[in-house]
């Protein structure tokens, strides 16, 4: 039974036209899929998943880049939370997190003004946004100069009546230096957040604002009841991104203080442990801990979006859209299948 089936196939294959077979949908489809996804997948595996796997593996060893490896179990993870520098760096990211919430608030404020016709608005928007395009290293230098004793900030404050003796050392004073450094990232990223918010505000139906004005809503009411609901998704998204962003602060503290004086952020400390101290195992464990935090944030984001911010109608519409797409795809498949059969 099986045998005859096979022999039938062979006879049909004898007549088959290679060019035609090659041009048939199914073969071409496979060819396209394989050739188009080979390189991206290879790179993805080599530079993301292989390192990821190795990272988890290394985190259980005490090792350097070269030389013997020693299995230490969970000791590296214990160290992440017990070593003074690592755990302090984790706590430090709260500074940056707080700063990023301030930053989002300021961004939202300016966005709500600049989304409407303002004279000189384009210039102000550009001025506020441009810091985002400056490299982290340059930002570091700019603010190293800015905060240096007796230089920019000090002379600015002296100009408005402060005395140099009243002013703190912005970088050396350990009670405020992390605030100073976190402020640099507010300066750098506020404009970017603002541009995103402006984009979101512009995409809210303009007639809603007009309607609110006609109904006699004041500016604050318009902001709270018309604008904010329209852009809440992007606000939440930015809040969650700012959590991961605050864990990855690197360049400004690296340039300004090299992570000294209690300003070592997570990545600065990790960089030191990985390359200066060559404790690859510990650095890997730090990376894994960071990853876990980020995954938790991502899950929180999903939960937020799914349960709090999508109402039933939207969900229904989304599902319908998906179904339609599936059907379309199935249709394409079918017609291709038909072509193949006709061709053979």
């Amino acid at each position, binding site marked *: 039974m099986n045998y005859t089936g096979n022999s039938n196939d062979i006879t049909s294959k004898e007549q088959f036209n290679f060019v035609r077979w090659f041009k048939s949908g199914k073969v071409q489809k496979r060819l396209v899929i394989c050739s188009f996804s080979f390189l991206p997948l290879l790179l993805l595996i*080599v530079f993301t998943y292989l390192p990821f796997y190795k990272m988890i593996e290394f985190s259980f060893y005490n090792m350097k880049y070269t030389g013997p490896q020693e299995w230490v179990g969970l000791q590296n993870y214990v160290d992440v939370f017990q070593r003074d520098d690592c755990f302090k760096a984790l706590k430090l990211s709260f500074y940056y997190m707080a700063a990023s919430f301030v930053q989002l608030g300021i961004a939202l404020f300016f966005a709500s003004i600049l989304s409407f016709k303002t004279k000189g608005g384009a210039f102000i928007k550009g001025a506020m946004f441009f810091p985002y395009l400056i490299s982290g290293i340059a930002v570091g230098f700019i603010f190293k100069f800015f905060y240096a004793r007796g230089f920019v900030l000090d002379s600015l404050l002296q100009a408005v009546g402060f005395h140099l003796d009243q002013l703190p050392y912005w970088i050396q004073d350990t009670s405020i230096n992390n605030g100073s450094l976190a402020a640099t990232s507010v300066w750098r990223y506020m404009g970017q957040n603002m541009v995103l918010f402006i984009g979101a505000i512009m995409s809210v139906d303009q007639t809603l604002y007009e309607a609110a004005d006609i109904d006699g809503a004041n500016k604050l009411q318009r902001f709270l009841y018309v604008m904010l609901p329209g852009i809440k998704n992007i606000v939440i998204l930015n809040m969650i991104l700012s959590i991961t962003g605050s864990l990855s602060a690197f360049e400004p503290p690296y340039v300004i203080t090299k992570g000294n004086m209690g300003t070592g952020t997570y990545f600065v400390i990790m960089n030191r442990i990985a390359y200066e101290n060559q404790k690859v195992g510990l650095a890997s464990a730090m990376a894994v801990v960071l990853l876990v935090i980020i995954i938790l944030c991502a899950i929180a984001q999903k939960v937020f979006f799914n349960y709090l911010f999508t109402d039933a109608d939207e969900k229904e519409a989304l599902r319908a859209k998906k179904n339609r797409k599936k059907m379309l795809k199935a249709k394409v498949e079918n017609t291709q299948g038909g072509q193949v059969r006709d061709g053979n």
Partner: protein
Amino acid sequence: MEIKKLQTIVLGILKYCVLVFGAFVAIIPVLVCVFTAFKTDEEYQSTSPMTLPRNWTYFNNFVIAFKKANMLVGFRNTFLVLIVVLIFSIIMGTMIAYVLNRFVFRGNALIRNLFLFAALLPGIATQVTVYKIMYSLNLINTLPGYMLVMAGTDVISIYIFLQFFENLPVSLDESAILDGCTYFGVFFRILLPLLKPAIVTVTILKCVGIYNEYYMSNLYLQSKDLKTISTALFTFTGPYGSQYNYICAGVLITILPALIIFLIFQKQIYSGLTDGAVKG
């Protein structure tokens, strides 16, 4: 009525005060750098940073900064990396997005999830082990190696292309295929030209990212003639640690190309950024 009018005027003035203050805070750190970069050594030491330079045509600091930090090499390398990585990212990103969006096959969802998860991994974190892999591939201290890492860890552009494909109707492909076009033809002749806006977005985001990238170039390009613009600038932490008139000049040199591009492509940059962020 009168009161209301007065209120709007006061509010308007207040609004402008706040806006101008915001713009002032955004500009002042850079503006002071501009002042300082034009000052002679003696002038820099004797005047407050807030005073204007005596001579706006004193370019000596720029010349010194440009030479000392080897910026010509930095610009050349950054430019090379930019071109190659952009081409790679765009070709690979559009291809994989085409496959993932247009074909139903086993593993499609898996590949999507692999890319999704990869986007969560913060770049710097995995470098500890990427470094080891690069080392075993003999790619440390080579420009192609750095390009490969930069192109290989790029997930954002794939997302932007995927999102854009969602909005290109499948009927386009169908009719082309009915007309006898092959899948390759559909991709290269029909879809790729339509992807132009997405390609612009990716180009903008990548340019910003690559031009400002420091961590990986510092890690993988350590020899002197392989420095990129960020690592070249970083050399100022060393011997010129407190000669801020040189440092500011160096900073301004690296900022200038970004400023020019920003002034020309302002609109595209804003919209590119907004498009890039919505990927979620």
